[in-house]
Structures are given as C-alpha cells and as structure tokens.
C-alpha cells in the first residue's frame, strides 16, 4: 500500500496544469494518513455531494437573512430572480435551485452561498446604471457558486481550525453533518472575504456569463469603475473594500483578459432597469 501511495505522490509532483496544489508540501505529508484516506476508497478530488452543498448554502442564506431582511417588494424580488435565472441558464450548472434576493441594507455588496442562493443589496443596486451592470454583479456571484469557492473555503477552514474533514462527513450518510458549525465558518467568510484569486476568477466568469446571456459584457467593469470612483472612505462600501481586491486591480485584470476576446455588442437595458430601480428609491 505504501508503494502505491508513493507512486501516487510521485505522480503528483509532475506538472499538472489543471490543478493548483497551493502550498502542498510533500516533505510534510503524513504518509500514514494518506494511506488511510486512500484505503478508505476516497478519490483525491471528490466533491462534496450537491445535496450537502445546497444544504450548507441554505444554512448560510438563512443566516444572511437573519442579519438583513429582504426588500419587502415581491415584484422587485421576482425581477432579480428572472434575471438571475436567465444568467444561470447559460452556465454549466443550470439545474441548481437558483434563488436571488435583494437585501434591505444601504451597505453596497453582493453575496453567494454554495448551491445557488445569491444576494445583492439595495445599496449596490441603487449605484448601478443599467441592467447589464446588475447582470454583471449577479454573474460574478454565480461564478463563485459554479466554482464552489465558498464551499472549498469552508472545507479548508474547517480542517484548519477544527480539524474537521467536511468531505468525508458529507460523503458518509450516517455520520451527522455539522451544519451549524459549518454555517458559522461560512458566515465568517462574508466578514473576512475569499482568496483574491477566487474574486478575479469570478470576475472572468461573470463577464462571460453576462455576455452569453446577451448583455453588454462591460456591465461588471462599469460597476467596478463606480466603486473605484466612490472610494474606500464611503462607509457603505467599507465591508466590500475590506473583503475584495481593490476595484482598480480587478479592472486592470479584466482589461487585459477581455481585450479582443468578448463581443463589443450586447444589450444594456436601461428602461426596464430604471423602472425597478425607481421602486427601490421610492422605498418599496
């Protein structure tokens, strides 16, 4: 068995462009633990089953709603759900139970939970110019869900801080899934932020998903410009600035990767957006 593990580890040291092993240090790897894991029949890159992903995400969504209520306007909530669903249909996970909501806070931000609950705040929506910008924001959050950024971060922190192996707990039907503790770790992520690399990746996915859905791909860059122009001294932006890379650096990266690779055309959709935005201003 040890031989097999060693062979696997040697295999891992070859360049594998598809995976980022981060700070994996082969010298410090616990061979006995590795043998145990493999003998348990687990695949090295098995995913947490989708049902558990959704369960965790619903827990995090319920907690977000415990912190801030939804804007009490069913028409507005349906509007972001229709838009969000249209965007999600142009991704590799169209069948997730996608749900979208506008949170009733002036703090400008957006949140995604594992499995497809996505939130945007009243404060952010009021700063947008058109529907293509809202599409850009929602598509960025959809990108986090597609690549399981929050789920992976929860798994990582659970192992680091509590020594919990979320994957095996999620895979083993009989053992309890510690939803409350994992939800707590997830909420901490909203307060502290994801890895910068995850944010840049969600930006790259977001502009493409918006463009696939027929929108002007420059909606998200427009929002980033607005955030940059408002600046970190705006108290309604403090949380966003402390949990994301600077909008300037995000724009720099998008300008490089988008150049020549996305259509210059697409809908901005101002009139419909203005109608709904006005309802927010009127304090619905």
């Amino acid at each position, binding site marked *: 068995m040890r031989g097999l593990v060693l062979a696997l580890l040697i295999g891992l040291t070859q360049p594998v462009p598809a995976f980022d092993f981060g700070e994996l240090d082969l010298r410090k790897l616990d061979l006995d633990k590795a043998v145990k894991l493999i003998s348990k029949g687990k695949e090295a890159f098995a995913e947490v089953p989708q049902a558990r992903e959704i369960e965790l995400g619903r827990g995090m969504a319920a907690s977000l709603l*415990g912190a801030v209520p939804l804007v009490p306007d069913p028409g507005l909530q349906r509007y972001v759900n229709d838009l969000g669903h*249209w965007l999600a249909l142009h991704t590799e996970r169209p069948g997730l139970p996608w749900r979208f909501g506008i949170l009733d806070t002036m703090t400008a931000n957006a949140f995604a939970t594992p499995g497809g609950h996505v939130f945007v705040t009243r404060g952010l929506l009021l700063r947008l110019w058109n529907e293509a910008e809202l599409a850009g924001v929602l598509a960025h959050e959809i990108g986090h869900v597609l690549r399981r950024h929050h789920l992976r971060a929860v798994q990582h922190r659970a192992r680091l801080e509590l020594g919990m192996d979320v994957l095996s707990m999620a895979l083993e039907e009989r053992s309890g899934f510690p939803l409350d503790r994992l939800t707590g770790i997830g909420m901490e992520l909203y307060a502290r932020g994801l890895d910068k690399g995850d944010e840049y990746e969600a930006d790259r996915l977001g502009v493409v998903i918006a463009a696939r859905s027929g929108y002007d791909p420059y909606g998200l860059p427009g929002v980033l410009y607005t955030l940059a122009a408002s600046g970190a001294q705006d108290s309604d932006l403090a949380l966003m600035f402390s949990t994301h890379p600077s909008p300037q650096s995000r724009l720099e990266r998008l300008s490089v990767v988008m150049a020549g690779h996305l259509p210059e055309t697409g809908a901005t959709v101002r009139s419909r957006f203005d109608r709904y935005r006005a309802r927010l201003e009127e304090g619905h």
Partner: protein
Amino acid sequence: MKPGNFLAGLLLLVAGLAVAQEGRITTASALRQAPDPAAAVVAYLKAGQAVTITGRDGSWLQARTVGEPAQKGWIRMFDVRLTGNGGAGRSAGTFSRLLDLFRGDEHKGAPGRVTSTIGIRGLTAEELRTARADLRALRQMERFASDPRRALHFADEAQLRARRLGYLEPAP
C-alpha cells in the same frame, strides 16, 4: 432621446466640464452617439488619437476628439488612457488615473444617486458573524424563485440574444 436621458447627459456635461482631461486612444475603436454598443457610430478612432474626456456613464466615457472638426461621442473606458499631467497623479496602475478622474464627482452624473437612506441601516462584519438563521425568511425568499419559462420571457421582453462564448483564460 428620452427627456430623462437628455437630463442625465446634461448633468454629465456639467459634471464633465470640471474634470475634462486629455487622453489617448489605445485600441482602434468607434466613437458612438450614445453610451450604448448599439448606438450609431460618429467616427472611427485610431490608436494613438488624442481625445478630451468630459463625462462618464457606466463603462463609457464621453469624449471629444482633438483637432478640427472636433467630434463628440462615447468610447469604452478600456480603450483610452490619460496623458499629460491630468489625473490625481497616483498613477501606479494603468487605470488609476482614469479612475481618479471621476472621484468625488461620481454622484453628480449617475442617475438619481443614493438619497433615500433614511431608516435603512448598514451591515457590519460583526452582524454577519453573529447572525442567527431566519428559516421563515429563507422560505419566503424561495417562493420568489423563477424558472426557465419565466426567464425566457424575461429575456424576450428586452430582446436579449444568447451567444456561445468560451470562458476567459487568466492573464499570464
């Protein structure tokens, strides 16, 4: 042009006069009549051409060509860089100076900026950490869910046309 758009344009112009800055086109691109990719083309600009930036709308910058006859229109913010001594001088990145351009003036041009804030509080990191699950609110949220049929209708209403596009590679 709708009266609302005209007013927004006028506001931008007013906001713009205070911040007019010299820039240069980085990629051959179209100068358009309105900040919309479907708007009519006023002129085609060459890389290196000098322009004066006078306003902003989303990801678009209002620009005027330098020289006779001067032409006015809108260009993509990614297609222009500031030149000369303009900007706030904190020019670490390529964009920083362009971004500084509208700092502080942000709220003047944008449509009906954030004003109705009375009674609605902000959200802090601490509130996120200590939040308690509200399952009733979650179930209520889930009742607003859309479906593919509704989403298609929503797209048709705004004449959104789906396109096949691959994801972008990260920058090297």
